[in-house]
């Protein structure tokens, strides 16, 4: 069997994998809200940063 069939099969399978990934992403609602996640990801740092600050404030008082 010619190598071209193998290459074609691989390329199409990869394309289909990405396509299925896209469909799944849409189905799970990822495209419904395109603003909140962009803000949410910035909060992870804030939480860690404020915790030590708080304890310092408390000891002062």
């Amino acid at each position: 069997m010619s190598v071209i069939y193998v290459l074609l099969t691989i390329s199409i399978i990869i394309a289909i994998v990405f396509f299925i990934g896209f469909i799944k992403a849409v189905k799970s609602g990822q495209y419904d809200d395109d603003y909140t996640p962009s803000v949410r990801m910035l909060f992870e740092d804030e939480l860690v940063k404020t915790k030590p600050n708080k304890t310092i404030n408390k000891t002062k008082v």
Partner: protein
Amino acid sequence: MKQTTCFHCGDLCQSKHIIYQEKDFCCNGCKTVYEIFSENDLTCYYDLQQTPGATPQDIEGKYDFLEDEIIIEKLTEFNDGKHQIASLTIPHIHCSSCIWILENLNKLNPNITASQVNFGKKTVRITYKTEAFSLKEAVLLLSKIGYEPYISLEDFSTGKSKVNRSLIYKLGVAGFAFGNVMFLSFPEYFEVNEFWLEQYKIVFRWLMFTFSLPVVFYAAQDYFISAYKGLKSKLLNIDIPIALGILVLFIRSTAEIVLNIGTGFFDSLTGLVFFLLLGKYFQQRTYNFLSFERDYKSYFPIAVTKIYKGEEKPIQVYDIKKGDRLLIRNEELIPVDGILINGNANIDYSFVTGESEAVKKASGDKLFAGGKQTSGSIEIEALNAVEQSYLTQLWSNDVFNKNKEDGFTTLTNTISKRFTIIVLSIAVVATTFWLFVDATKALNVFTSVLIIACPCAIALSAPFTLGNLLRIFGKLKFYLKNASVIEQLAKIDTIIFDKTGTITSNKKTKTTYRGSKLTPNEEILLTSTLRHSNHPLSRSLYKLLQQNNIESLDYFEEHLGEGIYGKTQNESIKIGSAKYVGQLQPETELSTAVHISTNNTYKGKFTFYNAYRKGISKLFNQLKTNYDLAILSGDNASELNNLKKLLPSKTKLIFNQKPNDKLEYIKHHQNNGANVLMIGDGLNDAGALAQSNVGIAISENINVFSPACDAILDASKFNQLYHYIKASKTAIKIIKWSFVFSFFYNAIGLYFAITGQLMPVIAAILMPLSSISIVVFTTIATNILGQKLK
């Protein structure tokens, strides 16, 4: 006096100024929220954004109805006995602090397992354990921290709505196929007669065929459906030549590979569908947080308290029967027409009329549905069921079931009518010519013409121009329901305004004083006394007079619904209604006034006027040359003289219009051939907004209330209206120019088609080139237009 603002909500700290932990708070409510947050290590809330909060409202007993199983079932998305998931709309969501605090609700109560905010829709989706927690407690918790959810009758009737994502799927399918087909069709374009290419081209061709199948039968199906509908109703819409083009492309390409005479046009076919869907997607830009379809249901509560044999019991609004005794608490909406039994009724009908001034009622008076009680609890007896109320009956009018888009031919469809006829005749003429000259080429020419004439570029002009302008308008706080509103707006010749709340502002009222002059001492006494009262009139008068010093009173008394009394060592003041202050002369004017007497002698009165919005005279003068202007007001004619001074002389002023009169007035004008733009705000304009060609709702706060309409305009941008209409007209010109471009491309393509030289590679170049250049042209042109607007 130094002005301090509240650390929590940013309002001015006035009479109830509190200092707690070196921070200023305007009231106890705001301080409590701060306490809750600081106890739970959540003060980060104030770091993300300055003064993000809202003052929590008193909600005692308001959400008792959330204990009802049927109501819980309707409001939750998921319920398995142990966990419940509910999505709640919270109008206050406005910044990143809001997202942060609402997604950390589990820190305030461990029974909440997850909460997720959708900022665009202003909703929070809460998952909680039902063992030790309930929907009611969740709502109470949210209210306690200043995020009171908004639960209306609308949530009840629609239930769980499904999101329609089919366009994204179709776009995905078309894009996927387009990419792969391009990739597969490339080798043959170079026409190198290599051995392996010759050997395997059959495989490549059939693979392309396979990829194009989902595009034609799934992604493009809307075009076939629309074309079929168009033909059925004898309308040559733009989808007919498109559907024809797709069909011919597919059949001819399939025939070519079956007969092994060529590669076919699969790349052009998939590319065409992909670009067309992209245009559709671009135009489908919607504002999640706004609703353009509101009727009374989104204003009305789900449940109301019924008094039955001395017991208070929450019942669903739809279950109210004639004769039921209902308890309306402070700040609650009256859901049905009723008779006031007892209590101090002070009804704010601003949802209905746009008039913010509350109306006093006495026992035995009739109360209309839609009013909001503003001073304490009242008891009423229902006169009829919800659907038969005076206000809700307006919605039984036919206009609310009509789709405005149906009766409107878009510019694209107007063009396509001629375009289709011309293309078909060219195809026929060219084919007959070739039948005589070289019959073998005739079929080739016929299909080529239909393929190349497929109006991809024309079909893209309007979506990209209007879609882009829609987003520009959105940034400028003018929110349109859909793109066709822009086209309708460009055709307007008559503009009708509502008065109260539309050309007047709700917030600022103007006042003038008439009577004997007050001494400086009396003025100080007046402001000091006003400061103690929470009555809306006292508040606005206090704000208007604020330049004075404040002194402390020895005695203060408030008589609900009558007036206030203040006393210092040697002076006393009475502020309130004419009767209360001892003015015996009957009222001659129709406007609202506050009377004043000091030491029991009558002094004078402050008369309130509606303040007109900034730039109103200028706006009307800009509009008067091109448009017929009219003002339709539900109020009495007390403002007639003011308006006459303010507005151009030919403006028609009509007063005392009931909701239905407004609708009929617009209908009458439309029957005379006018294209009417109605601008209103309250529910009483709902009929007129629906009847007009374009209905714009003016809103002081776009997140809260606006009746069903085609567009929502932020009140602060009201004076820009003229420029917005002008921009819509320019957009139409841009579309027309891009039509010219598309015809140019079509002419080039037709030359190849008619002469029988159309190669797949030419189609493959011409199709994307025309589409992309149109997209670029319209985008640049509308952006320049947008720049001018700012």
